[in-house]
């Protein structure tokens, strides 16, 4: 379970998160929607400790992410994250990209790490690209590789930060299909997205973010289908 409790985050004088509270249960898919700059992506980086917070508390499986004694490197093994820019490691092949963390972090033997990486790459449909360098892949393929790379750590949670925003419209579908597959397998996910139709389809709950706060959270039929707050209505009108 991910518990986010009254989290505050500032960049200098700019307050990006202004008291965000939500929980994500095991097996749940929660989508976060809202305008650009509303703090959605920042929240994800706070959840796995890539960004410090200035107030409140985030706990993953009961472990306080930002507490002084917490080993974030170890905690991150349980929380996979995929970014808008897929961030392939350009000097490694697709297979090596995916094997790296199992080898270095989990210290798996080469053969085992390789088997795991190959399985994940096949899972996302890249079984024929193992020994290719990332620069030879399309954006959608690189993004699926990034997903496989995160999955190879066998995380309990997956965070997706606008993973289709930087993609050619033609390539969005293949990445969304991969996310659909994960959700059908019962992966716990927080999905920050601008794809409202997709959020409606896969989410158990949808959170609407505006100006650093959650204005509305609930089942998609409610938040997207029948929003009550004027900010939500305005946002949905602008994107749909």
């Amino acid at each position, binding site marked *: 379970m991910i518990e986010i409790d009254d989290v505050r985050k500032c960049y200098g004088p700019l307050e990006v998160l202004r008291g965000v509270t939500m929980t994500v249960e095991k097996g749940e898919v929660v989508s976060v929607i809202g305008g650009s700059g509303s703090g959605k992506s920042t929240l994800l*980086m706070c959840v*796995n400790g*890539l960004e410090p917070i200035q107030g409140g508390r985030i706990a993953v499986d009961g472990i306080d992410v930002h507490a002084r004694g917490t080993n974030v*490197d*170890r905690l*991150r*093994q349980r*929380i*996979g*994250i995929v*970014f808008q*820019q897929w*961030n392939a*490691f*350009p*000097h490694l092949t697709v297979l090596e990209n995916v094997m*790296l*963390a199992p080898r*270095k*972090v989990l210290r798996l033997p080469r053969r085992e790490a390789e088997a795991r990486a190959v399985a994940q790459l096949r899972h996302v449909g890249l079984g024929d690209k193992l020994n290719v*360098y990332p*620069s030879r892949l399309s954006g959608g393929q690189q993004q699926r590789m*990034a997903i496989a*790379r*995160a999955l190879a*750590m066998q995380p309990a949670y997956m965070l997706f930060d606008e993973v289709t925003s930087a993609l050619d419209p033609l390539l969005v579908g293949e990445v969304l299909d991969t996310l659909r597959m994960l959700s059908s397998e019962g992966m716990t996910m927080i999905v920050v997205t601008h794809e409202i139709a997709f959020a409606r389809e896969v989410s158990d709950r949808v959170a609407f973010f505006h100006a650093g706060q959650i204005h509305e959270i609930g089942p998609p039929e409610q938040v997207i289908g029948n929003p009550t707050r004027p900010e939500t209505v305005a946002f949905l009108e602008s994107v749909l």
Partner: protein
Amino acid sequence: MFTATLSWNDMLFLIEGAGTTLVITLLSLAGGTLLGLVFGLVRAGAPWWLNAPLGAVLDAFRSVPLLIQLILANAFKPIIGLPWSNFTVACVVLAVYGAAYCTEIVRAGVLAVPVTTRRAARSLGLTWRQDLTSIVFPMALRVALPSWIGLALGLMKDSALVLWLGIIELLRSAQIIITRTQEPLLILSIAGAIYFALSFPIARIGARLERSWNDRD
């Protein structure tokens, strides 16, 4: 030995000098690169109160002519009571001089690695050190290698200045032979050819590495 013509012994003498040049270059390059790695990482990521003074000191080493540094270091050596040979002083001064340049090369290389890529590495659970060794160094190396090759070749040629400390390296041994034979054009050409022969493989290896990396992009 006391003839005015170029003998086989003279050639051996030149080659011996070339050996000294090579040893000084390799030692100072190794020292300069190690120091440059550490300083470059500091320059790329440390807070200003550490970064600024280090930058200023290294700027001084880059701005003062190497010859002055060599002579000053050699003069200060007995004053502060260092029991170093002239050879050691030469290597240390060249190493620090090389480090001042290497620092900027490393810094530029490290800063060329996108923050987002490093963040992706850390998000997989890689520690700071693992991120450095598995992601940052290999990626930075590709950016920094051409400049580093330039530094290596530059150090080899700059090492000629250590003749002022009485070290008989390639250029000094050429001078000695010129004094006797009075054949400066021939002997300087030979010395120049030896410098070229020492530099050429380094440049070729660099070019080959770059090509193999470019094939992947």
